[in-house]
């Protein structure tokens, strides 16, 4: 499968800030690629460099080998929804689309087509100033679709959409991929994209952390399960664990996490050694955890950060009632 979008050793420097640093990835047709990273990780800058809006400091960003500006009628090939793009408030929705259609040499019939496609036909004559954020997002999408492009670039398209809108967007994006179009969609939330993307490009601080498939990322998440144990007899527990080939890490004076362990495995072990337990939490790694670990870990390169982030987020006290009917239980 030839790549629709190719980013090679792309860099951007704004004054002293290295916004994008030697970034390389590709996007193939017929698949949805999630472009993920925390806010300020260079996603928007990268997309804007692809689209020729921001100048490139180093490297290349091309569509089938051509820069955006070198494409013949770019609107016919690449559709973009960008953050912070605005509309003239007193212009009607259909006039906004007509202005793009005429400028790009497209038939005006496309205006009605795309308005229908995004569900804005009824407000076509309304001035954009009166539009809600969600309606503006849809109008942006309609603008991107005018040229029936084979490549779509969407920067945080779910922003401002209500749950129905997000569901609709997912279906829309999946459909685009199913008809062979390439979709690059950015988000700072992997959970938002979990059901939508095939591939992921994860960036942090302008650098590539990982390009892989969602399936591969999910399998990583699966291996990240662990058992969080709070016990007054931590020393004895460590002694027991040292005799077994299992990985563990202490995360607090009275708490440790055993990698890959399950309550079904640990319960009988605790019973056998008559170990007193205060808490037993089975932690299943979610994609979001992997994503956070990847993007944070990349930053701090400190493994304890991964563990220490979780008690605060999950709140052991809040979860402790659930640990009461422990399988195996304490002796």
């Amino acid at each position, binding site marked *: 499968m030839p790549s629709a979008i190719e980013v090679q050793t792309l860099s951007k420097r704004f004054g002293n800030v290295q916004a994008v640093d030697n970034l390389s990835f590709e996007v193939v047709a017929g698949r949805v690629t999630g472009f993920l990273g925390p806010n300020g990780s260079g996603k928007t800058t990268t997309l804007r460099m692809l689209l020729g809006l921001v100048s490139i400091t180093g490297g290349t960003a091309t569509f089938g080998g051509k820069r955006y500006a070198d494409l013949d009628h770019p609107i016919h090939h690449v559709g973009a929804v960008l953050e912070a793009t605005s509309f003239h408030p007193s212009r009607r929705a259909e006039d906004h689309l007509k202005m793009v259609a005429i*400028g790009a040499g497209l038939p005006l019939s496309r205006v009605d087509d795309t308005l229908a496609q995004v569900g804005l036909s009824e407000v076509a004559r309304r001035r954009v100033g009166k539009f809600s954020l969600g309606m503006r997002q849809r109008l942006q999408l309609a603008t991107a679709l005018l040229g029936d492009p084979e490549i779509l670039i969407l920067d945080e398209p779910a922003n401002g959409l209500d749950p129905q809108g997000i569901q609709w967007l997912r279906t829309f994006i999946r459909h685009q991929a199913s008809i062979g179009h390439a979709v690059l969609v950015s988000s700072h939330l992997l959970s938002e994209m979990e059901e939508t993307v095939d591939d992921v490009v994860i960036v942090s601080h302008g650098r590539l952390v990982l390009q892989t498939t969602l399936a591969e990322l999910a399998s990583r998440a699966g291996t990240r399960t662990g058992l969080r144990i709070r016990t007054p007899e931590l020393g004895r527990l460590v002694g027991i664990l040292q005799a077994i080939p299992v990985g563990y890490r202490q995360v607090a004076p009275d708490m440790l996490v055993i990698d890959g362990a399950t309550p079904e495995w640990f319960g009988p072990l605790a019973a056998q050694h008559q170990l007193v337990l205060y808490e037993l939490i089975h932690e299943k790694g979610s994609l979001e955890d992997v994503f956070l670990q990847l993007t944070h870990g990349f930053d701090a390169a400190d493994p304890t950060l991964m563990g220490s982030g979780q008690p605060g987020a999950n709140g052991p006290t809040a979860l402790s009632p659930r640990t009461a009917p422990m399988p195996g239980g304490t002796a």
Partner: protein
Amino acid sequence: MIAGVRSEWLKMRTTAVPWVLAGIALIVNALLILVYFVNHGTGGGNNNGGSEPNTFGIPNYPHTTQQLRNLLGSGFESYLFALLLGTLCLTTEFRHKTVTTSFLVTPRRPRFVASKLLTAALLGAGLAVIMLVATLIGGGATLAAQGGSITDLIRQLPAVAPGMILVFALFAILGVGVGSVLTNQVAAIVVCLGWFIILEGILVQLVHGAAPWVPTGAAIAASNLTRGRGSDFGLFNWWQGTLLMLAYGLAFAAVGSLILTRRDIT
């Protein structure tokens, strides 16, 4: 390029800018026509015939060729609106951030500026036509009411209209040029008005021989209608003035295109 101009025209006509500017220009023009007739009637104007008393059988309304041309050209004073039309044509895109979409459609930014230049030139010319028609109607009706002849007024069109249309187009081009350099709308308007209302006049006073070289001098030369100020300005002929005025506009636009090409739209 035709698509670009059509798109730009749609952009302009779907915002209030051209209509508000044209509206203000028409009101200003109506006032100027009124002032013209009032001055003329009382003999207070600087028109040759107007100061003559009635009793010698000379009509008390504009009737000489020069008077009629002055009346028909009263819309000339609205040239600043053509300038603002050009300035706003470009700076509105930055004010409302619609420039992102424009650059996605037309990634080559000098081409974007070129479309704006052409569109603004046409809009400027259009504004001149509107002013001429309004003057023909308003001025003509007043003239007829005083016993003058509308036909005589219309007969002066070939002498007045081409120069006025040309000058308005040139001012609109200059406006786009300035706007492409100063994309901040308020800054661009302040600089434009500041120059033409205050600074240019001071410069002409201070620097001997500067008059024909400043934009207004070039525009007056281009207009081929040197009403009153002509002799003071020591003007070029019309095509020299046109080229000079065009050079100003295109020089700004070239610098603006260069700046815009390097500019990051974030």
